[in-house]
């Protein structure tokens, strides 16, 4: 009944086409009455394309387009045009792809499209913009995450640590030395090489005039034809035991992240089994996960504890994953939000012990069923706006799968608890892990970990005997932490080169 109502109320059209005489791929999500129009221009180029010694070149190039001028208009003039419409131009850059996102009310679509497309097709590459955008990236490293966000610093450092010697090692925002080495000429060269017709997907959603599609095809066919060769990805290096990177910083608490590569992504059927295991263990920003219930819920040791089976970036103030950060290689990770320094040893023991329990025991049938039901419903909420849905559709094409949200609906009901538990055994482990902690007195943390000395914790109020009994086991839990597997790095050296 409801579906019928929808069909009569709206004509929704989604199409994917390759233009004639043009290699540009266009992803359409047409909804005639929807007044906000979104463009998502995805370039299949990311930090893996940064030349050695110029880490950050992809990011800076994207910034020079999204936060720069056109041949006709300076950056200031662009801002002046967009402002009365409250039109937005945003951007994302990741390891493998980058996106420039435009949003405008349909009252201004024609004028906005001209500016938006000019930013990509006829960029200004102004020296002043170059300096400003480079500073923005440098200050992101030096001030925003090194100074002001221990959690983000830990998470980003973990990715580089996991992928040492792999094209994913270099952070998507670059390094201090890499950025300092980049010239405006480098940006122009990079742009010429990677902004080609075959390397771009133009996504569009909303109630746009249909004639716009032809215009996009025509305009973007001015880019050089072809598609640059994709960077080969070797297998990530094997992790031997527990490997530690401790970031020494004057801070009142300890932020911990740990993880390891997994050889599957959304295009693999086991991904969906692992999705259930992960949701049970640590669904992002919910109380569902074991980690959250045990570390925060029962013990109040921090604000939150979550796990992931793919690179995860939260979309603004929501709890949902941002689209358009697809990666061929993914990793499993656990995010322990800052804990008091005196509890840092205990909490790491607890989290790894919980991972061991997960790997050894898997899920019960009941947990499997309730988690599956959760995901079947929850995943539908990820696409509440056309903008987000378009992003997910583009990602699905990138992975070569049907629309991801539909695929979840198809794959999850097919699974059994055995499938999930087999996937856990196949892809997760508790012995070979890379661990990053942003902390004070890193040396004493290292000594504590290596010595495996008991790490009891105390409570301000009596807690139940079952928790105290479990604490006795956790505080003695042996971590295979060997002195030779530690690196202690001052915070100022992180992402320096």
């Amino acid at each position, binding site marked *: 009944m*409801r579906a019928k109502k*929808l069909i009569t109320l709206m004509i*929704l059209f989604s199409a994917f086409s390759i233009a004639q005489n043009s290699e540009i791929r266009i992803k359409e999500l047409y*909804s005639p*009455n*929807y*007044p*906000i129009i979104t463009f998502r221009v995805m370039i299949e180029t990311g930090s893996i394309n940064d030349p050695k010694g110029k880490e950050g070149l992809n990011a800076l190039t994207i910034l020079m387009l999204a936060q720069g001028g056109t041949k006709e208009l300076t*950056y200031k003039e662009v801002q*002046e045009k967009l*402002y009365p*419409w*409250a039109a937005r131009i945003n951007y994302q*850059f990741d390891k493998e792809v980058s996106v420039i996102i435009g949003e405008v*009310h349909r009252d201004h679509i024609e004028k906005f499209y001209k500016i938006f497309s000019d930013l990509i097709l006829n960029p200004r590459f102004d020296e*002043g913009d170059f*300096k400003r955008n480079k*500073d*923005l990236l440098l200050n*992101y490293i030096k*001030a*925003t995450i090194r*100074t*002001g*966000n*221990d*959690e*983000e610093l830990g998470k980003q450092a973990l990715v580089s640590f996991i992928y040492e010697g792999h094209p994913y090692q270099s952070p998507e*925002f670059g390094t201090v030395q890499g950025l300092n080495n980049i010239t405006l000429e480098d940006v122009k060269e990079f742009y010429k090489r990677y902004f080609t017709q075959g390397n771009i997907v133009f996504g569009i959603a909303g109630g746009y005039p249909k004639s716009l599609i032809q215009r996009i095809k025509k305009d973007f066919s001015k880019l050089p034809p072809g598609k640059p060769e994709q960077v080969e990805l070797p297998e990530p290096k094997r992790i031997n035991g527990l490997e530690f990177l401790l970031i020494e910083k*004057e801070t*009142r*608490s300890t932020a911990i992240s740990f993880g390891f590569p997994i050889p599957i992504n959304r295009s693999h059927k086991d991904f969906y089994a692992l999705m259930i295991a992960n949701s049970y263990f640590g669904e992002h920003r*919910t*109380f*569902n996960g074991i980690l959250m219930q045990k570390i*925060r*819920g029962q*013990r*109040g040791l921090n*604000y939150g504890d979550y796990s992931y089976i793919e690179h995860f970036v939260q979309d603004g103030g929501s*709890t949902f994953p*941002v689209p358009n950060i697809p990666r061929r290689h993914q990793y499993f990770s656990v995010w322990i*939000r*800052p*804990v008091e320094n005196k509890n840092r040893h205990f909490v790491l023991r607890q989290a790894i012990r919980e991972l061991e329990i997960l790997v050894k025991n898997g899920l019960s049938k009941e947990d499997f069923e*309730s988690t599956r039901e*959760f995901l*079947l*419903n*929850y*995943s*539908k*909420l990820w*696409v*509440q706006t056309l*903008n*987000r849905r378009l992003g997910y559709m583009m990602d699905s094409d990138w992975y070569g799968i049907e629309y991801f949200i539909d695929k979840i609906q198809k794959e999850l009901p097919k699974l059994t608890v055995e499938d999930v538990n087999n996937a856990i055994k196949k892809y997760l482990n508790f012995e070979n892990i890379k661990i990053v902690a942003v902390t004070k007195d890193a040396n004493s943390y290292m000594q504590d970990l290596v010595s495996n000395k008991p790490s009891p914790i105390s409570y*301000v*109020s*009596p807690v139940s005997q079952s928790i105290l009994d479990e604490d006795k086991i956790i505080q003695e839990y042996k971590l295979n932490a060997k002195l030779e597997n530690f690196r202690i790095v001052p915070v100022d050296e992180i992402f320096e080169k």
Partner: protein
Amino acid sequence: MIFDIFSFQIKIKTNTQTKFETKMKKSIFLVMMLLLSTFSVAQNKIFPFKINKVVLDNGLTVLSVPFDSPGIIAYYTVVRAGSRNEVEPGKSGFAHFFEHMMFRGTEKYPEQVYNDILKRLGADSNAFTTADWTAYHIVASSDALETIIDIESDRFMNLKYTEEQFKTEAGAILGEYNKSASSPFLALYEKLQDLAFTTHTYKHTTIGFLKDILDMPNQYDYSLKFFDRYYRPENCAIVVVGDFDQNKLIQLVKKYYGNWKRGNYKPEIPVEPPQTEEKVGHIPWKGKTLPYLAIGYHIPEFSTKNVERAAFDLIVELLFSKTAPLYQKLVIEKQWVDFINGDAPDRRDPFLFIIMARIKNESLIDSVKNEIFNAIEELKTKPVSKKRLDEVKSYLKYSFAMSLDNPNSVAYTVGHYFQLTGDPESVNELYALYDKITPQDIMKTAQKYLTPQNRTIVTLTEEKK
């Protein structure tokens, strides 16, 4: 990655969750295809949807907005209490702490049962606390409406937690403080508000003073008092937006919330006396940092009648939008700062117009400060052009219109204006008032409020060893 330089938010989110036996229909997929055919910027009322308002006998307000999100609803419970209500000394941060306690269960639905119900629903559920209000919000299947009303009404009427649960949760609050403490923004807001206010509870931030957070485990009795005072029907509203049946909604709300007893507590929030001289503070930051500058000017409370207050929403744009001459000069031309913004948050009592900047070099702090003061002087002495003012008004309208693209943001908007004035229609009055503001109004407002004796300045730089 996405840049979020302004990583400290005043609004504090609690991580809480999740619920139950009804299943979302397949049509939920189609929720993104909103049909906002009434959605037009060129209309009399900026808020394009009809707001139904029903007040129950016990004083509970029910606000509902039909919205074309097939199969989905957003459900907000709005409590008109926030850190502003923390009037007793030593109790800062309590409204937020209490928000956490609301997830600790009742006799009928203990914590784990509540969570299991939300988990099975696959609902997106959370809560946040601000200076003036606390909101508990759920986005879920329309089919779940009765379940949601059942579990939400139950915890608002019958919350029950042990002292042990209370103390454990205090640890999570400290954890929340810790996660924000690495950001200079928390330190800046703490210092700025502490200096600018002598008497009013806006002296502390929503998360509260660290010393009070550390003492929270000892405040069990006060927590019961807080619930008794503010979690009462006449102080709350239910906001429902999306795909629902209005008659059924009202019938269910009456059934489940009907027995909620009215309260009678009237908080006496101390009134802040006028500031008479400039205040200055400094934060030495341990570890490396770029320098930060924060400036706050006292301004009037939110109002849909007071032109001066509304003028500040335009002044924010005139000074700090990307097209503002000051922004252009500092960020684009001279490149002295990599971040600058102004904000005049809607507050129930007089709060601050706050300017924040991150400066690229310590030697430039005074120059940046002077440029800001020069731009303010210009605002006082030179009428802004009508064209520029019209652009700002256009920006505010389109920006607002574009934000209303899903049931959750519509429900947030309704909740926000309800908590401010008791009437969500005040959003329409506010935008109508913007239309009337003249260049002279801007000048007069700037002359009256943007004075040295009315301001507080805080800087943050690396500690000198």
